[in-house]
């Protein structure tokens, strides 16, 4: 079957089917991660999430298209609809799983009246997910019906001995229901972010604020979040994709003499422009002389942001942020999507307003608060 959102589409009934971004492995099937580099890569295993969903009796609708290695380009046009969003929108499946590090799916889901759950880092096993940014990779769920998304999360979450970063049954999504504390929820609104967003987003946040008690705060380091995110993710992407060298599996150039040639030509021909750019930036920020200036500095800011978040969540149940700024530049907008992955926090994209939405972020393991707010609780 052909479908514009899929790489591979199976003939199954949509009402019991899930779709996967083509970087999540299904045994004996192709997993290309959207790259020529892995054009012929047959997965030796089922990803843990796939195993769990199949065991629950769900069926695989297919594998969807994605940006090469799920890395969003920060230059050029970036408005093509993500495969996972398209697949759910098209009603070819009930839910779709993907690894949204750079925010494209979070934004597009809300813009298309869908939800995107990005759980706490370490909630869902990454076993069988092609690595992008190891410290931020987190499989999330695109869904049209939030309850279906929550139920899916409860199926795929939990400790996996194949991924030592997974945590026990700590996710509240798994075991807690109803109000978590007495009284009304307090939602923090980052005023310096709001100043830079567009009218549509302001409307959406306003709609949320009309229902809840909100407080304004200043999000520290917001002006450098894009840089921090870009430096750290490039370093990890460059490292994670250095295994694709034409030696063992994946694409190998037909045209080489000697080892250096084999590496250079295979990687030149196998990777797209964005991946090459990312790898070069990644190598640059880690190289001696630059490490302290870029990587280490970004790591320090990452820690400071985490510390601020820890403080914020002493007073707030969640913070709400827009999904677009008053700019079309993907690099500028990256600042909005960086907070959750940098700090390992759960986020929920909620459609609000017209073709727009907000992202709610809570402290780690507090997915339930996000769901509760989204459903209009207290």
């Amino acid at each position, binding site marked *: 079957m052909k479908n514009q959102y899929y790489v591979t589409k199976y003939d199954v009934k949509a009402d019991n089917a899930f779709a996967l971004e083509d970087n999540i492995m299904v045994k004996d099937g192709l997993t290309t991660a959207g790259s020529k580099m892995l054009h012929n890569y047959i997965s030796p295993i089922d990803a843990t999430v796939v195993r769990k969903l199949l065991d629950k009796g769900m069926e695989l609708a297919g594998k969807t298209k994605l940006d090469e290695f799920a890395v969003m380009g920060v230059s050029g046009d970036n408005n093509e609809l993500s495969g996972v969003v398209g697949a759910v929108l098209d009603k070819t499946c009930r839910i779709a799983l993907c690894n949204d590090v750079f925010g494209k799916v979070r934004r597009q889901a809300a813009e298309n009246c869908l939800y995107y759950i990005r759980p706490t880092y370490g909630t869902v096993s990454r*076993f069988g997910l*092609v690595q992008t940014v190891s410290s931020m990779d987190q499989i999330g769920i695109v869904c049209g019906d939030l309850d279906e998304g929550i139920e899916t999360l409860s199926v795929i979450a939990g400790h996996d001995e194949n991924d*030592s970063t997974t945590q026990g049954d700590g996710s509240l999504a798994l075991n807690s229901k109803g109000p978590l504390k007495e009284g009304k929820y307090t939602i923090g609104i980052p005023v310096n972010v709001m100043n830079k967003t567009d009218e549509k987003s302001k409307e959406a946040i306003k709609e949320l604020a009309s229902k809840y008690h909100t407080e304004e705060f200043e999000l520290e380091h917001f002006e450098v979040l894009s840089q921090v995110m870009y430096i750290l993710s490039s370093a*990890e992407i460059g490292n994670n994709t250095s295994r694709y*060298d034409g030696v063992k599996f994946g694409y190998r150039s037909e045209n080489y003499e000697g*080892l250096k040639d084999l590496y250079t030509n295979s990687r030149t021909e196998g990777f797209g422009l964005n991946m090459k750019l990312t790898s070069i930036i990644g*190598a640059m920020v*880690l190289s001696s002389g630059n490490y302290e200036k870029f990587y280490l500095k970004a790591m320090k800011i990452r820690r400071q942001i985490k510390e601020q978040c820890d403080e914020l969540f002493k007073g707030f149940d969640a913070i709400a942020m827009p999904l677009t700024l008053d700019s079309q530049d993907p690099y500028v907008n990256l600042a909005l999507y960086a907070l959750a992955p940098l700090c390992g926090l759960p986020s929920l994209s909620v459609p609000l307003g017209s073709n727009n939405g907000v992202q709610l972020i809570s402290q780690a393991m507090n997915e339930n608060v996000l769901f509760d707010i989204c459903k209009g609780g207290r």
Partner: protein
Amino acid sequence: MKYEVVMGLEVHVELATESKLFCSCSAKFGSEANENVCPSCSGMPGFVPALNKRAVELGIIAGLVTNCEITPRITFDKKNYFYPDLPTGHQNTQLYAPICRNGYVEIETESGKKKIRIKQIHLEEDAGKLVHDYRTDASLVDYNRASVPLIEIVSEPDFRSAEEVVAYLEKIQSLFTFADVSDCKMQEGSMRCDVNISVREAGSSELGTRTEMKNLNSFKAIARAIEYESERQITAVETGCEEIVQETRRWDDNIGESYAMRDKEDANDYRYFPNPDIMPVYISDEWIAEVKTTIPELAEEKYKRLTEEYGLSDYDSKLLTGSRKIADIFDGTLKYVDNPKEVANWILGDLSSIVNEDNKPFDEIDIDYEKLGKLIKMVEKKTVNRTIGKKILQEIYTNNVDPEEYAREHKLGMIADTGFLKDIVNKVINENEKSIIEYKEGNQKVVGFFMGKIMRETQGKADPNTVREILVEELDKYKI
């Protein structure tokens, strides 16, 4: 001008774990190429490293036996470089928080005892192996060794002679083999050593420019390489005809020279950074204490037991604790026969000479402790005599026979029937009347002559002491 050689060592030791550092593949040596490989250790996407707890414990033990401080929170870092033997394009190692720091070992050379300081010990993974196939002119890669756990022991520049270097390596080998950290076999590559070497005027406190020597595959090669490199550097300093540059040099033991390496090792910027996939490991005092109780008896303690408890000589005790293998044979056999002195005699005497004749290093032999113990008991109880015992030992060694069965089948049991022996003795005496006269005239040597004849008659199966007793008794009865 007098010069002093200053050296520091980087010793790599493969840990004696069952499985690899991040997956459940076997870590054993000598399998078919790529037999012990899975998607994880061959670098395929989608696999997350799962740290081998046993490797961490062996790292702790390595630190404890070398008097190191154990780091309470350890982390892993990625070291990046491209090479076909490195499946993921990075090596997992410890740059920022190595498992052990600030230790020392004491070595003994002819010039006395000396402490060698250990800067740090870190855990890391090994790389695979490239094999060049000359028939097809292709390079092949074997990932069996990829991700086998290693520790690297980095010393301070405390060495002043090749003798000290070898003494240190022997000490490390002894400590780690007795503690079950590693089998430390240089010939199989489970122990490897790089030497950082520089020279300076004797008495100077400044360090000269150092070079790093690689590919040192035996103690002999290490000693030769050190001699070569120190002479090269001294000549360079004295004549000024060559400048010493900081570089990595590869030792070629066949031609006895080293040459500068121009490869991955030299030109690389390793771009280290923390590995986000491996969570920090917290090593509590309780864990250390628990691990400590599992450390087997080390050579020094064993030596004490042998000399003090068993009363064995200094010399024998040193030999019996000289390697893990010989110590194991001793202790293993002692379980079956409670006579340390006899066991020591058998191992250091008869067994050693058999092994020598076989031209094998002692560490590679295989012998059943129970059978050896049984044999020693049989000789003790005079079921067989010592000469026959030695023959049976040879059979145990080469054919793994059971000594009791073997003696029974080959009718090697001693003749314990004194009546029967008396008959043989009298028969021999009667056949040699001339010798009786000599005996009566006081020539004691004749006893030996008679003994030889009698033992021949009994095919060596009589206990010489019993025979001697009977012989003297019977000879004295004779009246001329």
